[in-house]
């Protein structure tokens, strides 16, 4: 279970302080998919970076299954991120010179997944997203946008993380493919028992989530 309490992040710029995240608090259960909606510059990406341990908050706590993450140092965040956090990006961000299967294997390597079981796990995850067989040996450039996002989902879930952060996962896909990807995320979340946070500005995507949160000027609020 994810428990976020009174999270704050301020950037000090030449133009003045920017309060990107203000007193954000919310909970999300394992297997639950939560949508975070917000306009550009509302603080979505900053909140995602804090929750994904890519950045450290100024104040507040992030509790994931009883482990406090907000105060981890850089090394600790890297280690925890490799095993407990999965990312799905708008631009897929697959490593271009690796095949689909190698991209998934890379995540398993960083998470210190048992070496002997990595290949089986990679194949299992690729089969889960419908990319087993010949396509798993293709490099990203030879896959469609939807297929690349499927690989990204397989990569994000491969190490069985507790938290999946999806940043505009359908932003680069057509409507039909986008719906399939969201469905896949939802399915994987329940199958794997992971908490999925989807940042989106697409109401249709948000409507498929179990709960919806809206962030505006760094302040998060539940949408009924």
């Amino acid at each position: 279970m994810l428990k976020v309490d009174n999270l704050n992040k301020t950037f000090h710029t030449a133009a003045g302080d920017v309060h990107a995240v203000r007193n954000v608090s919310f909970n999300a259960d394992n297997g639950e998919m939560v949508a975070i909606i917000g306009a550009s510059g509302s603080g979505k990406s900053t909140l995602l970076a804090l929750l994904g341990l890519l950045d450290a908050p100024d104040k507040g706590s992030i509790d994931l299954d009883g482990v406090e993450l907000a105060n981890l140092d850089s090394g600790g965040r890297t280690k925890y991120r490799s095993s407990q956090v999965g990312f799905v990006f708008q631009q897929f961000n697959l490593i271009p010179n690796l095949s689909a299967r190698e991209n998934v294997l890379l995540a398993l390597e960083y998470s210190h997944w048992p070496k002997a079981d990595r290949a089986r796990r990679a194949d299992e995850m690729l089969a889960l997203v419908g990319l087993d067989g010949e396509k798993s040996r293709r490099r990203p450039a030879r896959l469609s946008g939807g297929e690349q996002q499927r690989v990204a989902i397989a990569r994000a879930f491969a190490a069985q993380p507790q938290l999946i952060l999806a940043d505009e996962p359908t932003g680069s896909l057509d409507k039909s493919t986008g719906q399939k990807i969201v469905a896949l995320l939802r399915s994987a979340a329940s199958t794997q028992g992971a908490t999925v946070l989807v940042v989106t500005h697409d109401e249709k995507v948000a409507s498929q989530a179990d709960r919806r949160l809206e962030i505006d000027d760094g302040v998060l609020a539940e949408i009924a």
Partner: protein
Amino acid sequence: MRSVGVVVILAVAIALSISMLIARDAVTTKINSVRASTGNTITVSPKGFYGYSGGGTPLTTAEVNDLLDLKNVTSVQESLSEELQSSQTSLKSPTPSGTLGGRFGNFGGGSGGSTGSDSSGTTFTIPVRIIGTNSPGNALVGGANGGGTEKLTSGTSFSPTSKSNVAIVGATMASKNKLKVGSTFTAYGKTVTVIGIYNSGSTFADSDVLMPLTSLQTLASASGQVTSATVVVNNVNNVTSVTKAINAKIGSKADVTSTEATTEAALAPLNSVKTISTYTLFGAVIGAAIILLLSMLMIVRERRREVGVLKALGAPNRSIIGQFIAESTTFTVLGAVVGFIIGAALSSPIASALVSSEGSTTPASGFVRGAGGFGGGGNGFTPPSGTRLPGGGLHATSVSNTLTTLHTSVGWSTLTYAFVFAVIIAALGSTVAAATIVRIRPAEVLRSE
């Protein structure tokens, strides 16, 4: 394509480094070789002695032998030079009288030598030179005796301590007098047997006759007398101190001249090439490092997102840095292999071009007192080949002729240096990549979405 470009540019820079390294090694070897064989001799002559024109009081064998006791002296080559008029020998000088002989000749007439006349009709004869030596094989070294190294073309030589009336004669002298091994000629009224014919590559020196020192001293009634001594020093760096020691010992009786300064002057072009190749070498290495450094900087910046993604996935900095170090090392190794092959192939022509260029701008000057004062003969001295030098610099000529002949080769030291340079280049290139990677924050990946 970009990787190929980086490797090609690196290969060119490394090829230049390698060729400069090889050229520098070749020049250094040549300099050391010349110093070891040429610059380590000191010529000792009776004070006021002026070549074959004479002058001064001869040194004694005892005085010269004392020089062997000096520190760092490895050997002393003694010689007695005698000039025989036609009345003293059956030999005829092969040296033509020529214009200079006509102008300066003052040896008087006779039927045995090479004769000529000046504008007033005065006839003269070129004398025959006989050199007594205790160092057959090196008797000509030192310049005063003609320069070069005698090489037997037939017969045998004599022992350093021989007292027999035997001689080895220069090829030119032998040809002029139709001498061969076993032939005889007369000198000071005695019969001398030819036991060998030599060729030194110098027309001047090949006109000489070499005899055992003791034999000539006896024939010429010059027992114990020496007109020239060549002191061989163990290391060119000790020449100055030994010169001082000789001056302190017999400086009042002898003129002491070392070849050190003149050797350095003759080697100046090679030293210039060495300096140029050294600077170019470091310039090329630094250039290669900068090329790789900028290339890696460009590659890392272009792959900033990829680095951010890897960090987001949990990759530690060392893992990502290791990946880029592997890439820069691969570039360097490929560039080094191609560059080494090109550099090795180009090193010889580049070294030759550098030496030729320097040689043409810095003419070698004659060194070691030559056979100046010789009373005529020929139309001026012409060295065996190469540059005409003033002052009869025979020895200098033989050195300068070999300076432009460089042997380039790839040795273990070159390979070691090349490896070290490649490591330096790769390390510099990787350092920049590493520093840039460390600064990339994974959160930037999200912000740039």
